[in-house]
């Protein structure tokens, strides 16, 4: 009998964990947000704790990674005081914010990569420790509806910040760029990149509202779609 599915990552694992709980699926969740001491910071670099290393070495099946996955939100959830946009290389015809300055896509990619360094390093460590294949699950797509998201941000905690959520297409482009970086990493390391469930996106590539959780995360219904992807690959 196969062991439980193993899912490791940050906040995006929560929707999958909730779906597994509802479905009664055996799922082992390693959520870094719930594991104080699991990541050690030494000399400006991060590494997994010895305890977590041991735990990962014992796992023989496939590993599903949802490590990181929020750098695009950090960079572009809110409008920057110096509004910017970029032309997505893979889809150059997508709309541009008419009020924004256009930055080179490669420069935006470099900035985004700088926010992902620790997460990619963490993925490398997990990949090295686990005997089974590493599948990295794409971050949930963005919701187009800015008004819906507006109510989820605790604006009061951030006085002085620009209280404007970035235009939908800008957030979509950052999400695609983020996925491209992770996908490239997977291609270079032999890991598998698993795109988001096709049912979760509308005809324009945005998240369908029924899968929306909060401004940065998907809900348990989305988690169920991901869980099904995991079951098929396990």
């Amino acid at each position: 009998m196969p062991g439980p599915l193993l899912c490791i990552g940050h906040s995006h694992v929560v929707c999958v964990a909730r779906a597994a709980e509802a479905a009664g699926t055996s799922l082992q969740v390693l959520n870094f947000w719930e594991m104080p001491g699991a990541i050690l910071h030494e000399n400006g670099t991060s590494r997994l704790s010895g305890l977590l290393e041991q735990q990962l070495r014992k796992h023989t099946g496939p590993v599903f990674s949802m490590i990181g996955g929020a750098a695009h939100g950090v960079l572009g959830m809110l409008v920057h005081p110096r509004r910017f946009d970029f032309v997505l290389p893979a889809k150059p015809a997508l709309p541009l914010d008419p009020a924004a300055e256009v930055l080179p896509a490669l420069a935006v990619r470099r900035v985004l990569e700088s926010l992902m360094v620790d997460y990619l390093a963490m993925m490398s460590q997990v990949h090295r420790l686990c005997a089974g294949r590493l599948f990295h699950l794409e971050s949930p797509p963005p919701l187009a509806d800015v008004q819906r998201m507006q109510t989820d941000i605790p604006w009061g905690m951030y006085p002085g910040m620009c209280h404007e959520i970035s235009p939908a297409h800008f957030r979509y482009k950052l999400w695609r760029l983020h996925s491209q970086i992770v996908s490239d990493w997977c291609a270079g390391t032999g890991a598998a990149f698993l795109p988001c469930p096709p049912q979760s996106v509308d005809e324009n590539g945005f998240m369908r509202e029924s899968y929306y959780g909060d401004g940065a995360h998907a809900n348990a219904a989305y988690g169920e779609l991901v869980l099904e992807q995991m079951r098929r690959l396990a």
Partner: protein
Amino acid sequence: MSHPYLDISDAQRWSRAMAGRANEDIDPVSPPPFRIGVDSRVVTAGSCFAQHLARHLREQGHACFETEPPHPLLTPALAEIFNYGIYSARYGNIYTARQLLQLWRRATGVFVPVDDIWEGTDGWYDPFRPSIQPGGFSSAREYQEDRRQHFAAVRRAFGEMDVFAFTLGLTECWASREDGAIYPLCPGVAAGDYDASRHVLLNLSVDEVVADLRAFVDEVRQVNPHMRMILTVSPVPLAATAEPRHVLTATMYSKAVLRVAAEQLCRLPGVYYFPAYEIVSAAGPGYFAEDRRTVHEHGVRQVMSLFSRHVLEAFPSIPVVAAHDDFVRRGQAIVETWCDEQRLDPPQVDPGWRGNTDDRA
């Protein structure tokens, strides 16, 4: 006996101004008709030597008038890779007077070259800024959007500047046979493909350099009547010549043309010649590296020291440093808040984490 040389200043006599003097004690600068104030909007452009001037002004606490500055999200190193912050706008090196005039005319829509964009194997290239973007532009649209905002930045820089410091670098340049468009680099060197049937070498004469710069001054002053100009000639020799002669002969010809052109141009009102070329050349090999081409930093410092003394108004020297951006830190805070909120309602599945002690800690 009486003659005009009896009452000339020491600076006019080689024996007193040059002979036996240390390099640092040679000062050939004539008093400028105007000085750069702390609030002056200074725009710099020219050959690679012009980059020193912009850097020096920043170090002296005098920010250049930047109309296409790096976005604060970009680190200084990343900004430099993408050629932000080198000059007032992202036009890269401008080696010839004709290239400068062409930039203004393209930015104002007066001239639209036939050669519009080059498609390479790895990206799209601007024929008139082939090195501006590492790896080229990722799409034709990215190039078009970038060029649109670049031209707006050029119009604003030239249209609103108080002082324009231009370093004349070359007389040799490559042009399109179709419409005379000037390339900063020969096609095929940094990008594009050289085609002898489409590209031609020009070696601009004194009259041509003067005419191009006169046209530039006249056209810019139509929108910016108070613009004043400082001309310098780059002391850096040619890296290579396409003329069939020795590179040293070609260099001397080119510098002579540019120096004479500058002399003629500084007869125009509001145009001043600063002798950077003479300051470096007077030191013989003293300011050059072993390659006889690279100007040592102490040579650059000497030029800039005299520039400060004669051309800049005195003001406190507080280096201009780009502001740091804390936007990412704040964005991280919002995302982490969401993540924190998820902790308030954790799922009940196997947490998979048995402890928080580290056996190696």
